[in-house]
């Protein structure tokens, strides 16, 4: 099975698979470390032997992260691979977290755009804050429509 180019593609497809088969789909993350490939220096250089030893020591082993969504019943496999540490927290927290909610049959989390407009917990009691609250809702409605258009 080929790998997806972007994490977003992987997430979208995984989400669809999970919606279709929530009970059997699993997500496996493999973090693997492999020794760095050492480039063999050409023989003939007098200092090569010493340098080679030095470079192998300085080169740290390479790690990679492969994230795989698999449904054993239909045999669908969706994969994404990365070597960047910067992607880890996003992949785990938002992607795996979101898919985890799907697995648990939890309702979809609120749209992220709505978050800054969301009234604070205590705002419900205050009458003055209601106009801003409704304005925020209208905005999020617009955001939702835009998203639907994007999907086409």
């Amino acid at each position, binding site marked *: 099975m080929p790998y997806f180019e972007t994490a977003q593609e992987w997430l979208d497809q995984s989400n669809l698979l999970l919606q279709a088969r929530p009970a059997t789909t699993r997500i496996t993350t493999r973090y693997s470390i492999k020794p760095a490939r050492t480039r063999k220096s050409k023989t003939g250089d007098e200092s090569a032997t010493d340098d080679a030893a030095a470079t192998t020591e300085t080169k740290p082993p390479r790690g990679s992260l492969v994230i795989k969504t698999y449904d054993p019943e239909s045999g669908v496999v969706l994969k994404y691979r990365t070597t960047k540490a910067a992607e880890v927290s996003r992949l785990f927290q938002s992607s795996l977290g979101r898919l985890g909610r799907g697995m*648990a049959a939890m309702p979809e989390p609120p749209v992220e755009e709505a978050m800054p407009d969301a009234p604070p917990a205590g705002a419900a009691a205050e009458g003055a804050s209601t106009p801003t609250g409704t304005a925020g809702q209208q905005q999020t409605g617009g955001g939702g429509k835009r998203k639907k258009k994007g999907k086409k």
Partner: protein
Amino acid sequence: MPSSKSHLSQTEFFDQLEKLFSHRKGSDHGAIYLTQKRLTHSEDATLPSPDEEFPDLNLSEPVPILIRASNGKSARERGDKVRISTVVKPDDLDGFYVRYADICKAGMAALKPRDRSKKKAKAKKKKAGP
């Protein structure tokens, strides 16, 4: 390992997961596998019926999910095999994933760090070059 058969509590699981990662840190090879799936018991799973073709799609309430972690050792190396699991209740999901992401990020030290200095140096070179 009979102890690994039962699910750990969340805090125990995180402790073990950290150990699993720290064990990898020193070595130059190896892997860690993390899996998540819906927790189902085959006994009480509702079977598809003509009335309801996909009972899994219309659950009345959220179900817990199962998180597993292992160091990927085969049965032959049973002595070294580490296999842990925990069950996360629907209400705990958000908190769990925050912690989970932190530990995994800290543990996956062999991944390429974000290297801004190199990029900046390259950009400077490009600017200075032509």
